Every structure is written in C-alpha cells, then in structure tokens.
C-alpha cells in the first residue's frame, strides 16, 4: 500500500466529482430536481461503507484463522472509517430528505435500518474499549465483527425490500437505474464511487499507521 498512484487517482476523481457533480447537466425530474446531485455524494457513502466494513470483516476472519495483531489493527481501523462513512451517509441523506421529503427524519425503513446498523457498529467500538487484555480484545471483537457484518446484510438489503419506502429505488420511486437513460449521471457517479471508496481506504491506512506506532510505543514502554 506504499505506492502513491492510487492516492493521486483518488484526489483527481474526487476533484472531478465535486466540480462535475455540481456543474454538469443532470436529468430533470419532478420533486428531485437539482437535489438529484446528491447521488454523487450520498450513494457512494453507502457503497464505500459496505466496502470498508467488508474489508474489516475479512480481516476479522483472517485474524481468527491466524491470530496476529496486524490483522486486528486492520479490522478495527477499517471498521472505524466504515462508521464514519455511515454517519456521513445518514447526514447527507437527512439534508437531502429535508428538502425532498420535507423532514430530515421521516421514519423511512432505510433510514431506520441505517441507524440500527450504526448502533451495531458503535457497540463494536464500545466492546473493544471494554476489553483490557489485547489478545482477548482482538479475538472477541473479531467474533463480534463477523456477527455484526452478517446481521448487516438482512438489515440493509432484505428487510427494506419487503416494505414500501419513500426512498428512490423502492416503492415504485424512480431509482438510479431508471433515470440515467442518457448516461448523464453515470459519467460522474462511477468515478465518484471509486473516488470516495479510495478516500476511505486512504483514511484507514493512515489510522492503521497511527495505531501501529501507538502499539510500538506501548511495547517499548513495557
């Protein structure tokens, strides 16, 4: 992960997302209007969060297979960035909902489930803090992380599909796939997803380096 090219790519893609996302032509739809530009900021947060949490869960599985502190640091830092993305996803969604659904929180199934998902992962951080012994902390929190990720799938993808929702993409509302017939959204959306996800990975690697330095300090102090 020491190479620089993907960080440059990330900065360029995000510059393009911000400039292009606000200035380029977008399809005009009832109710959504200009707020459709939130697609470039809100949706990538969820995809980024899922990617980061998946990476975190994979490192937890690796830890259980072969216990090494490195895997534990990876798992926890990726989970932290995933939570950050989740919070940003909820906040961008709320700002958007304020203008299109007239209230920031309208009890939509997707909003509620997103809040529950955040609760599950905040509990993960709490669990990590309440275990003192490093080895025990790594193992127990790896187990909980796997459990948390497998609860996330029915929570975010199966349960909301069963109820009607105001959210674009469910309950007969126009979704991304239906409205981009002229590919005007796609041109910005795909780079935005890649850019934001890379930013998440970048943030996590910085967190991992800080954590590694902290661990080494603790080791030297002992």
């Amino acid at each position, binding site marked *: 992960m020491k190479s620089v090219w993907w960080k440059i790519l990330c900065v360029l893609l995000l510059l393009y997302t911000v400039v292009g996302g606000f200035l380029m032509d977008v399809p005009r739809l009832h109710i959504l209007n200009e707020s459709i530009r939130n697609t470039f900021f809100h949706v990538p947060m969820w995809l980024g969060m899922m990617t980061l949490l998946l990476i975190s869960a994979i490192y937890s599985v690796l830890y259980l297979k072969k216990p090494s502190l490195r895997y534990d640091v990876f798992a926890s830092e990726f989970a932290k960035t995933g939570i950050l993305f989740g919070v940003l996803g909820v906040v961008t969604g709320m700002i958007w909902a304020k203008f299109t659904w007239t209230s920031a929180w309208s009890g939509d199934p997707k909003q509620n489930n997103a809040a529950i998902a955040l609760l599950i992962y905040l509990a993960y951080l709490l669990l990590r803090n309440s275990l003192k012994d490093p080895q025990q902390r790594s193992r127990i929190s790896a187990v909980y992380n796997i459990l948390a990720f497998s*609860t996330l799938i029915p929570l975010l993808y199966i349960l909301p599909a069963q109820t009607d929702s105001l959210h674009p993409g469910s309950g007969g509302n126009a979704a991304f796939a239906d409205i981009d017939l002229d590919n005007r959204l796609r041109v910005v959306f795909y780079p935005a997803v890649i850019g934001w996800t890379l930013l998440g990975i970048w943030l996590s690697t910085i967190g991992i380096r800080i954590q590694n330095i902290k661990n080494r300090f603790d080791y030297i102090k002992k």
Partner: protein
Amino acid sequence: MLFSEISGLLKKEITIELRQKYAINGILLYLAGTVFICYLSINLQATQLHPIIWNALYWIILLFTAVNAVAKSFLHESAGLMTYYYTIASGQSIIASKIIYYSLLLTGLAVIGLGFYGLVLGNPVQNPGLFIINIMLGSVGMATTLSLVSSIAAKAQNNQTLLAILGLPLLIPVLLMSIKISKNALDGLPWASSYDELAVLGSIDAIVCALAIILFPYIWRS
C-alpha cells in the same frame, strides 16, 4: 460435536434449573411484573387497546424478558466451571445445548407471557397456529443471538450493560420479522400471506445458528 454430549449438557441445564428454582421463578415474576406495569400504564379498557400497540408491547416485554433470562447463560458461570466444561466437551456442543435449552425456555416464557398478557389486556390473536410458530421461530433467534452475545459480554467488565448494548441492535432483524408475522396472525390473515416472512425469519435463525456454532469455539478458548 456429539449428540450424546449435547443431550448430556442439555440434561445438566434442566437439572440445574430445576434445582435452583429461584432463577426461573425470578424470570416468571419479572415477566408478570412487566405485563402488569404495562397494563397499569396503559390504563385503558382492554378492548380499546389497538392491535398494533398490543403487538408491539408484547414483543418488547418478551425481548426484555429474553435478555434477562439468557443473561445468566454465560455471565453467571464461574471460570472454574468453564474450565471443567473445556475438559469434557467441545465448544460446539456447549453452544448447541445452550441454544436448544434457551429456545425451549423462551418459547415457554412467551406462551406463559401470552396467557397472562391476554388475561389482563385481552387476546386479539385470530390465527393462533401462526402465532405459536412465530413465537417459536422468534425464540430460537433471540436465544441464539443472546447466548452468543452473552458469551462475548462475559469476557468483559460491566457485562450486564454490554449484553444489552451488543444484543439489542443485533436482535432487531429477528424482532421486526416476528412483529410483522405476529401482526398477520392478529389480523387473522391466511397462512399463505406470511410464507415470505416466515422464510426470512427462518433463514435469519439459520444464519445466526450457523455463526454461533462456528464462532463460539473462538470466544471460548480465551
């Protein structure tokens, strides 16, 4: 994981429960107390209670009873006893026996709770068969998740609070599906209208069971 080990451990759970009657009596009293407090708080004629509220209250009472009942599965077992288990049985048989035992216990509590709840607040259930199946599936889900989470929380300090924090968000998918099926049973809808939900609830149970059996040996080893 052996059938004889599981049945032996199951027999031991039941023997201990019958020997220390205060635990099961305590839970029954807790259930009765909660139901009575709900009855007094609503302070309505039983007939005026809307089925949606009846349903929500019933499942919330069950949820908190379940948290309290399953809490003792690992929190109250001494380190010495765990070491003894370690020498006589595999981790998988232990968690399997706990899951079976607590599923049965929670189903029993739910049925007793339904009796008492129905006595004071009326019983609007129109499809009892579906309701009972739903209680059983819901109990399996709650027992499995809470047993695993209880074994996680037992490793940390401040574990009673931790059990609730870790367990409640993870239980929400099970709880939401149960509440939905139970609403169908209240309204007396035909079985066919609940097949989808029953399938989802059953598969959530199956996933959680599989995870518990795979993951428990890792928690146990520490």
